[in-house]
């Protein structure tokens, strides 16, 4: 890995399921180029991808800011959507408020937040109803 800290920023478009995943894909590419261990890339890619999908389907789009340092990658995904009233409830496997339309696209099984938890070394969810949600994912490299 190179010495410098890498900072990346991506726009996450609302309601565009065909583009959803582009930011995570971009980050995965960079981690590959840096020669990070495949298992760690996979962890970061999956956790970020789930957060990116949530920003698209629940958050009305948002912004992803990524910091890649020698020892860790931090992904911050911020949206100005409806927010999450009960984070503990939202974290439960199977809990979802997603529409049938989202379900037909293979998401909305209520596994996104649990997957983020499963694959990250640190997960912080900050949310305020009516203001938005920021999800911070850290994976140690």
């Amino acid at each position, binding site marked *: 890995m190179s010495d410098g800290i890498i900072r990346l920023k991506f726009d996450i478009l609302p309601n565009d*399921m*065909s583009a*959803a*995943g582009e930011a*995570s*894909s971009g980050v*995965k590419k960079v981690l590959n180029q840096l020669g990070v261990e*495949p298992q760690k890339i*996979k962890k970061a*890619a*999956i956790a970020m*991808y*789930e957060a990116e*999908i949530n920003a698209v389907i629940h958050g009305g789009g948002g912004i992803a800011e990524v910091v890649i340092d020698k020892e860790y990658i931090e992904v911050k995904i911020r949206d100005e959507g409806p927010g999450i009233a009960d984070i503990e409830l939202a974290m439960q496997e199977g809990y979802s408020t997603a529409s049938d339309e989202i379900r037909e*696209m*293979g*998401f909305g*099984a*209520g*596994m*996104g937040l*649990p*997957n983020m938890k*499963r694959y990250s070394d640190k997960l912080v969810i900050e949310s305020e109803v009516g203001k938005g949600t920021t999800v911070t994912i850290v994976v140690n490299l």
Partner: protein
Amino acid sequence: MKVSEVVNLLEAEVLTGEESLDMEVSAACGSDLMSDVMAYVKENVLLLTGLVSPQVVRTAEMMDIKVIAFVRGKNLPQSIIDLAKEKGIAVLRTKHPMFISCGKLYSAGMTGRGVWD
């Protein structure tokens, strides 16, 4: 099992990724729920799905899954095939439904090892 054997067993068309036919896949996973695939799949497997969405390809990309088989002869938009091609992911299409497809592969010795355990 080689991808070419999967193609034979499923009587599948190869829509992109001819160069992967010689590759080995040790296990398979059948699911229409991409979050489930991401929750449990550990090894690099063959993904069978009835879901037609670019998110299937995205999920495969994040999971390092190299082969996707779309079951029940689903019509695939070219954009999905192009996205898979760009990511170096092979796309198969079989007329058989999910249960039959999984059964054919399982009977031929394909397992779920590395998927659910």
